[in-house]
């Protein structure tokens, strides 16, 4: 029987299988950041250990850093201590740190790929659930907890039970105005926020093949929002072209050797998945969420569901509670509803392509006066590219605010927060209660839908503005 892409990589990395238990899985790359690593460093130190393979660990500061005046000492004392702790830990354990002020600093899931660290066939972990992003390169990449970070520090391995496999095939052509963010929001709305739990998902089909690497990353990034352990896409020419020539990509003979391996990374024709889902690309419209989990999404021109009409009691209560928090009413449209904030950033949509798309649409326009618009590039390198291409001028002329790289209002850990009760169209990945600040109301959407709202001040179907 043939093998799935997932199995090919997984099996190659199993050091040992514990009888009736998990496998010892070898980890090629371990990304760390300031929030989920300090307790793990303490843990191994308490055991009298050093980091086992420091060269396979890459660190950055992203979650808890300010996005203004990064050259100054961090004002918030706890945040400063946490970032300082990372610096000290990395020094003590010989780990490469792309900290504040470093030209490679940025959101961990943005910098791994852009530096060429993320490569096909790897196992990659990070103490962050959106590690699934790296799966876009045909890697087995997943988020882990701090105890597991400690395991990797101690042994370069984690104990993991093999997840089940799912394939989601998306065939056909995408409609105008539909971005990869819409694809993944559509999938999650369809299978729910827990529909992928226990699975590792492979995205396949002609619609996926047609996407750029950055668009693929957006899809894999949000795999966790349907509960999946991770998401992945088989590497192809698009993948290889993206990696070629990047800072840490293999070169010369090494490149040829790797390429030969990478081209074997696909699911065999007769591979069997535990679950398969077929989607026709033409079903997908620009999407937006109305609730407090990423599965509560609708087509931008659709109506919010009426809670009473939902047969399942748990689901009904869920939606009632969500609508109450969001201040929304079932049966109504979101189109035309005023928003006060637009956030363009996060590991889902803060890469150069996202910002290029936004800039191309915004060029020559001005934001609506009632909206605060914040653009937070995913990394220092993205920020540099934005300047090199003059996109910053377009944003400034439109009245948008551009910040420095970091997670920012995606999780509201630093001072970038959405005020209580206000609406924010956000290109991030989570609309949980209070995620962007206590009482903040998040509507998840694509960068284009976010940009459209920035200009009009209301929830807008981008296709209405781009009609020729």
């Amino acid at each position: 029987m043939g093998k799935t892409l997932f199995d090919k990589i997984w099996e190659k990395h199993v050091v040992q299988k514990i009888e009736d238990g998990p496998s010892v899985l070898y980890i090629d790359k371990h990304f760390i950041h300031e929030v989920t690593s300090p307790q793990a460093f303490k843990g191994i130190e308490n055991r009298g250990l050093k980091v086992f393979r420091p060269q396979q660990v890459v660190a950055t500061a992203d979650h808890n850093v300010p996005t203004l005046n990064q050259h100054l000492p961090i004002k918030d004392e706890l945040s400063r201590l946490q970032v300082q702790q990372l610096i000290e830990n990395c020094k003590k354990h010989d780990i490469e740190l792309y900290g504040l002020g470093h030209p490679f600093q940025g959101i961990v899931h943005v910098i791994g790929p852009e530096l060429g660290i993320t490569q096909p066939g790897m196992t990659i972990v990070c103490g962050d659930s959106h590690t699934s992003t790296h799966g876009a390169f045909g890697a087995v990449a997943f988020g882990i907890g701090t105890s597991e970070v400690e395991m990797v520090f101690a042994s370069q391995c984690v104990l993991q039970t093999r997840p089940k496999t799912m394939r989601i095939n998306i065939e056909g052509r995408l409609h105008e105005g539909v971005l990869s963010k819409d694809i993944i929001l559509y999938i999650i709305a369809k299978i729910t926020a827990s529909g992928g739990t226990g699975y590792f998902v492979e995205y396949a089909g002609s619609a996926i093949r047609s996407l750029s690497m950055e668009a693929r990353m957006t899809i894999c990034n949000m795999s966790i929002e349907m509960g999946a352990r991770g998401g992945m896409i088989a590497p192809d020419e698009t993948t290889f072209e993206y990696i070629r020539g990047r800072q840490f990509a293999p070169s010369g003979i090494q490149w040829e050797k790797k390429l030969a391996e990478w081209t074997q990374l696909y699911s065999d024709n007769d591979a069997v998945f535990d679950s398969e889902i077929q989607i026709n690309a033409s079903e997908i419209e620009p999407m937006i969420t109305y609730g407090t989990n990423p599965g509560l999404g609708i087509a931008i021109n659709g109506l919010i569901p009426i809670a009473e009409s939902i047969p399942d009691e748990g689901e009904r209560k869920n939606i009632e509670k969500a609508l109450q928090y969001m201040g929304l009413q079932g049966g109504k449209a979101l189109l035309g509803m005023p928003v006060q904030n637009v956030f363009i950033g996060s590991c889902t949509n803060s890469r150069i392509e996202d910002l290029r798309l936004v800039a191309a649409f915004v060029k020559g326009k001005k934001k609506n006066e009632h909206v605060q618009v914040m653009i937070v590039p995913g990394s220092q390198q993205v920020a540099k590219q934005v300047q090199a291409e003059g996109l910053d001028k377009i944003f400034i002329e439109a009245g948008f605010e551009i910040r420095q790289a970091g997670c920012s209002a995606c999780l509201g850990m630093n001072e970038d927060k959405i005020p209580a009760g206000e609406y924010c169209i956000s290109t991030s990945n989570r609309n949980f209660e209070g995620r962007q600040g206590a009482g903040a109301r998040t509507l998840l959407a694509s960068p284009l839908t976010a940009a459209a709202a920035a200009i009009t001040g209301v929830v807008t179907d981008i296709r209405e503005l781009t009609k020729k």
Partner: protein
Amino acid sequence: MVALQKIHSRFVPLEMENVDTDQIIPARFLKATTRDGFGKNLFRDWRYENNDETKPKAGFVLNQPQYSGEILVAGKNFGCGSSREHAAWALQDYGFKSVVSSFFADIFKNNALNNGVLPIKVSEEFLAKIFSQGNESTISIDVEKQTITIDVTGAQETFEINPYKKTCLLNGYDDIDYLINNKAAIEAYEITNQGY
């Protein structure tokens, strides 16, 4: 890790689905560099008026003195969202030894187990039975036998737990001990698989 063999306790009912880790412990409390003290911010925004510890929300179950115990019972898809282990630390620090639900998010489940908090997956029906109990009702959990029992009615279900994890839990072993003891195998693997 502390060994966990049996629990006999009242329970706290949290009749809600999709309780995500941002609710269990909001991001603004993740600035600490130790594992301690997260319990006081468990379910912070459901427990208190915005940022004011002196104003508890009376409607939230943790603020209702009639409910207490070492077992949290919650609706399906508990622990979805972020990988933050702080969620497990907060539950443990607050005093919970087990969370019972009809469905758990993957990463949370691992994190809980790695901290000696036992996630018990029960059927929807059994969950409904627990929720229908009064606040005086107690639950017994036996890790060795893998059973959960509502004491007053005698209703019982067996739950699944990976045999390896069960051994760890019963004896208080953790995964890191296991891995460190198997370094030789890991080093041997590295020699034959010089991947990246």
